[in-house]
């Protein structure tokens, strides 16, 4: 987690947004000290609901910059993910992925690693950038937690994007690996060493499979009207003067 938060903090600083306008909703609890250091508002939501929660925050106060940290491979929140993408809600989703566990050291044995695996290894994982792209995200990128510079650049760029942006970060999740320090450090190195940067690659080709390299990079960067934009456009068109455009200074 830590390299990601560092990247995030640097992103906020470089982009130059007032931290108090940044609001993080997350499935993963942050350390209180970290939040206080970042100077943001932080909401630890129920599992999987952070994107829906963030949608509420953003719509009720469009001046906020809402960032979501999503763990658990979006399993519970997959639906909120695809729909927020479709609406092009102005949210930045940082998807912390730790799923390739079964890959290291070959196949798992029934007694040990699989029990730690958040995902049974006989299932194929999502290709997150492709899914995000196909449901309409305007920005998708993937990095490992060790690509610190690239991650910071991506965070800075994505904070400035108008629309649904997704950054997938491959990183061992602390919850599943408690007490197995050895694996944790190995895994993160494994990701880094096996990755290859291919900016602008078609997201459909960046699926992660047990064979081959992990493709990282920035895959999507496009423009689409956000939810609030199209809301205002459509309603002004229909209602004319009677409509109070949404998302003014005070929401």
């Amino acid at each position, binding site marked *: 987690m830590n390299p990601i938060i560092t990247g995030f903090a640097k992103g906020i600083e470089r982009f130059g947004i007032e931290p108090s306008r940044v609001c993080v909703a997350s499935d993963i609890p942050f350390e209180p000290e970290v939040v206080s250091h970042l100077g943001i508002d932080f909401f630890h939501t*129920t*599992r999987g609901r952070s994107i829906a929660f963030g949608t509420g925050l953003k719509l009720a106060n469009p001046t906020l910059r809402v960032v979501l940290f999503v763990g658990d491979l979006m399993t519970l929140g997959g639906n909120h993910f695809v729909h927020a993408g479709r609406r092009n809600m102005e949210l930045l989703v940082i998807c912390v992925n730790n799923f390739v566990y079964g890959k290291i050291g070959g196949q798992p044995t*029934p007694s040990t690693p699989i*029990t730690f695996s958040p995902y049974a290894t006989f299932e194929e994982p999502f290709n997150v950038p492709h899914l995000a792209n196909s449901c309409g995200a305007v920005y998708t990128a993937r990095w490992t937690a060790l690509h610190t510079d690239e991650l910071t650049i991506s965070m800075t760029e994505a904070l400035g994007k108008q629309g649904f942006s997704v950054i997938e970060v491959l990183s061992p999740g602390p919850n599943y690996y408690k007490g197995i320090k050895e694996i944790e450090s190995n895994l993160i190195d494994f990701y880094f060493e096996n990755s290859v940067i291919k900016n602008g690659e078609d997201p459909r080709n960046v699926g992660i499979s047990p064979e081959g390299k992990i493709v990282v990079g920035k895959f999507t960067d496009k423009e689409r009207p956000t939810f609030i934009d199209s809301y205002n456009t459509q309603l002004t068109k229909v209602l004319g003067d009677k409509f109070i455009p949404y998302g003014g200074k005070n929401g």
Partner: protein
Amino acid sequence: MMKANPKGILSGTHNLSGSEACVEGALAAGCRFFSGYPIQPAIEIMQRFLARAPQVGATFIQMEDEISAIAALLGAVWTGKKGVTATSGPGFSLMMENLGLGVMLETPCVIVNVQRAGPSTGIPNRPGQGDMMQARWGSHGDYEIIALSPSSPQEMFDFTIKAFNLSERYRVPVALMSDEYVAHLREKVVISPASEIKLEPRRYYEGPKDKYLPFKRDEDFVPRMVDIGNGYKFHVTGLTHDERGYPIMSEECQEFNVHSIVRKIRRHADRIFEVQEAETDDAEIVIVSYGVTSRVALKAMEQARESGMRVGSLKLITVWPFPEKRVAELAKKVKAFLVPEMNYGQIVFEVERCSYGNANIVFIPYGEKEVDDPDDLLSAIKQAIREKKPRKGIIEYNK
């Protein structure tokens, strides 16, 4: 009743945690399907099942959330498998909608809830008993359900089998309301030989194929089942339906359908409910408890008896249906009921209701101390004995 299939039964004496015992119980009961989603502190049940699945040829799936876990479970049960899912507080809340579907389709299945401290995310790795009322009332609409509450790994094993038997017998989802403490507690568990484990077979329909009515009730008021894929071509729906399973949107059908679902359990409540009593014959104080708190209750009772206080214990094995009659009977004899719970008052309201003002009710809420410390209970017993006048309402014990 029939005997269990020896395949998959680890007969003998083991040192198992509650979670492991639960899985062994499920396998002994012939359960061959598990669908779940990882959640603390129910994760061990899932892991154990996954580890045991290859050995017994069981099917396991980790779904995308708890909603789909229970939906998949219901689907699997209709193929003829016995199935189980395990979860905890937040997951249990997500299952509520499809628990209602299970009730409406009268699908036998077992839902293990390893209760943790709530509400919301609460404390994921600490025990609680805050979902007891939810088990009975958590889904919308009227229904009745069976809930069991084990207090030890041995009971996790036994009650899991009992839960499967009850669910097959009455065609109703059964909730096994365990808690983090029991699920993680490691104790001796005796697994009897298969020949001594009695199982309730599924109540299959045995008539001509074209005459099958999925919701026609037999003499016990329970409808008969068939498996998918055998040419019965039946239809079932979550809408209010008649005997054929076809939806009819009328108040008569609603009365027929839903009242039958409620009656099915209420009519057999006396047969379903089970309590364990200890020294209630001459007791002036009776501790009503369930699950892990009953361990403390028994300890407190013994200590109190040693110092000459006439204390008895009523341990609820089935929390739902609630043993109304037994509590009402006891209320007339005793001075007070003591109800320790790891929540801020749930089952105590039921005890209050069923004692009809005949006994004082003392409630001991979520303790600050470890669950197995009987001190609070002992001093509450002393207080209750000292109390001379009958008092209405729940007296909350002050530490």
